[in-house]
Each structure stands twice: as structure tokens, then as C-alpha cells.
């Protein structure tokens, strides 16, 4: 399939449309709201599910296949926040806000990751099974590097140790790594018994979750308007640059075309679960309306709609050479 067709198919998937519905619902001031408990349940479910699936597959992966991508992940986890910090400072964001943005882009958006996987499934392209492990690896260093940058730049980045603890024991990492371990230990046989919940329902649950994310996105549209053009620039240019970087590094690290697509989407994405909590604790001077707008309102929908097909085209091109 060519890229345009893939974009079209992606835009018309129930997930992307549900996200759009959420935005529209909020814009027409509908009273549609998800109960908090549903939002939390869906995020627990999605994190555990990708962990389980990844883990079951990981059990069959030789370590030799894993080390290069893992290293590449660590590398970008450290490099990306430096790039983003520099760019944000160049755009005259305050130190605290620049560091906060660096932490978010250095980390990874789990839903973008999932959306990339779903996209590949729709395009009938395979990818490595160990990708969730890379997500877990990528969650941490970005935040650490960003807080260190804040400290070096003279803004005390709060307790660094506290922030690392926060991320490592945060529910996203615990569920992701926990899921991987359970999946790896209980193997194919164990997964079979829980697959009707954790595999079959996955895309439906993702659709519901994206509906809620659309509602949340629209609530923050005002922040973007207030934040102005440099935030919009950052939020839309950063993913393209980072995605390209991810695609190049991913293919150098030996990932397949599909794996490279997912990897690029991970690098291009900005966290909005783990990073915001850690940043709020460690960098309270940073303004949530800056970093949440950038990651949730700008970068996320860009990746969801155009970014992922773009990274896929790029990855395919890189692998065709």
C-alpha cells in the first residue's frame, strides 16, 4: 500500500475517529465525560496488556537480538532531552519549562506506541516482539537527563533521586515491566487463558481511551492559544525531527522496517503519564499548561494522524536501500 492510502486508512480507523469525536464533543460543549475510574481502568488495562503481549513474545527472543536496539534506546533517551532543551531555550522558554519539555519528549507516549503497533497491524507489517521492553527502557533516562539539565542550568531541579524513584515506581513502569515479566514467565500457555481480555479487546479499549483523550485534548486547546506560536512550532516540528532521528537510529540498530516505524514513533512521542507527575514534583516552577499542551494537544494528535504513517514511509525507504 502506498503512503497516502495508509494515511487515509489510518485517519478512518475507529481509534482516530474516536479521538476526533472526543474533541468535537468537548467543542460543542457536550456533557459527555468519562468517569475517572474508567480512565484509570483503561490505562491500567492498556499498560498491562502491552506488557503481557510483549513479554510472551520476548520469552522467545534471543538476547543477541535485543542488545543493539536496547542500547540505541538508551542513547536516544539521553540525547533527545538535550536536543529538546537546547531547542526550547533557543525559543526563549524559561529554564524550568525547557527542562520540563525535555523530560516529556525524552520519555515516551504509550498510546502513541500502541497506535503505531495498531497501524502496522492494519498495514500487515510485522515488527519485533520486544518493543514494549524498549518503551520501558525509554521511560526513564529522558526524565533524569532533563532534571539534571535544569540543575546544571541553575534552576534547582528538585530532588533528582525523588524524581527517579517516582518514575521507576510509577504505575506505568510497574505495569509495563510487570506485564513483561508475567508474560515471559507464563509464556504462550498462560497468555492463551487471558488472551480474550488482554488481546482480543485491545483495540476496542484503545478506541474508548482515545475518545477520552480527545475530550482531554479539547479541554486544553485554550492553553495552546495562550501559549502562542513558538509552542505550536515546537509541538509540531519536534516530532518530525525526532521521528526522523528515531527512524535512522532504529534501522542502524538493526530493527526491521516495522520495528523502525514503532521505534521512530516512540522517539517522536512525548509522555503524558509518567513525565507530568515526575516533573510536577521535581520542577514545580515549570508550567503544566506549557508541557501538557505541547505533548497532549500538539504532538500527540500529530503523531496519531500524520506522524505514524510518515515515520513508516521513512522507515520503509531506509530499509529499501
Amino acid at each position: 500500500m502506498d503512503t497516502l492510502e495508509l494515511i487515509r486508512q489510518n485517519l478512518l480507523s475507529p481509534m482516530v475517529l474516536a479521538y476526533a469525536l472526543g474533541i468535537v464533543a468537548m467543542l460543542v460543549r457536550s456533557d459527555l465525560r468519562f468517569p475517572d475510574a474508567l480512565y484509570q481502568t483503561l490505562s491500567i488495562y492498556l499498560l498491562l496488556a502491552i506488557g503481557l503481549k510483549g513479554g510472551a513474545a520476548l520469552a522467545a527472543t534471543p538476547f543477541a537480538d535485543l542488545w543493539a536496539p536496547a542500547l540505541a534506546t538508551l542513547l536516544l533517551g539521553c540525547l533527545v532531552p538535550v536536543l529538546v532543551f537546547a531547542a526550547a531555550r533557543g525559543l526563549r522558554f524559561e529554564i524550568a519549562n525547557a527542562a520540563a519539555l525535555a523530560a516529556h519528549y525524552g520519555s515516551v507516549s504509550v498510546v502513541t506506541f500502541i497506535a503505531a503497533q495498531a497501524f502496522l497491524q492494519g498495514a500487515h507489517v510485522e515488527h519485533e516482539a520486544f518493543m514494549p521492553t524498549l518503551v520501558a527502557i525509554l521511560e526513564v533516562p529522558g526524565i533524569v537527563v532533563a532534571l539534571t539539565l535544569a540543575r546544571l542550568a541553575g534552576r534547582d531541579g528538585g530532588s533528582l533521586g525523588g524524581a527517579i524513584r517516582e518514575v521507576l515506581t510509577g504505575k506505568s513502569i510497574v505495569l509495563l515491566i510487570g506485564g513483561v515479566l508475567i508474560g515471559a514467565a507464563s509464556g504462550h500457555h498462560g497468555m492463551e487463558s487471558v488472551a480474550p481480555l488482554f488481546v482480543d479487546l485491545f483495540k476496542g479499549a484503545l478506541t474508548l481511551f482515545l475518545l477520552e483523550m480527545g475530550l482531554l485534548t479539547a479541554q486544553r486547546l485554550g492553553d495552546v492559544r495562550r501559549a502562542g506560536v513558538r509552542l505550536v512550532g515546537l509541538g509540531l516540528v519536534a516530532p518530525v525531527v525526532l521521528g526522523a532521528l528515531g527512524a535512522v537510529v532504529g534501522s542502524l540498530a538493526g530493527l526491521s522496517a516495522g520495528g523502525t516505524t514503532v521505534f521512530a514513533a516512540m522517539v517522536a512521542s512525548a509522555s503524558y503519564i509518567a513525565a507530568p507527575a515526575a516533573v510536577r514534583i521535581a520542577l514545580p516552577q515549570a508550567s503544566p499548561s506549557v508541557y501538557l499542551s505541547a505533548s497532549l494537544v500538539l504532538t500527540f494528535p500529530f503523531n496519531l494522524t500524520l506522524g505514524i504513517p510518515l515515520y513508516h514511509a521513512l522507515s520503509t525507504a531506509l530499509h529499501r536501500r
Partner: protein
Amino acid sequence: MHTVRLKLVTIVAEAVLRERVVRELRDAGARGYTLTTCEGEGSRGVRASQWEGGNLRIETIVEAAVAERILTGIADEFFENYAVIVWTQDVEVVRGGKYA
């Protein structure tokens, strides 16, 4: 019914501060607290709270001296950067000795 006059301190703070506020209360000498989840709007643009699970409303019944320590502690630690509001009232507490 015999009652004791004590201070009721109410703190509304963003959810991410939960552990730190509770530690603050304990350090100041409070013997207990009651916590409700809530939402809110205030004067700051800061609205991270909603994202990380709304606000918390924490009530604690304490002696006047402890109340004073709590107000100072909360103000020092959180007022600059976080969405927090604190107020106190006099209340009549049954079996008040327990909380003083």
C-alpha cells in the same frame, strides 16, 4: 455532651501533593486526618491537578498550636509553586482529648 474546642484545618491541594501534605501534618503533630477527592478552580492558570487526578480536600482536627505549625509548614513548602488553599475554623469536638 461534653465537648472540647479545637481547630479544624482544611487544606485543598492538587493530588500530586498527597504524601507530602500528610507527612507535613504528621510532623506538625496531627493525630489523624480525613481526605476527600474534589475538583476546583482557582486564581492560577495552573491546572495540572485535573490531569493527575483532581484536588484533595484534607481536614484535620488539632490543637491551636499544631494548627499554627501546619499553616506555617504548608505555606512555606507549597504556596510558591503549587495550587493550595488553607483555612481554619473553631469546632467543638466530642471526645476531644483524643485529638489534642
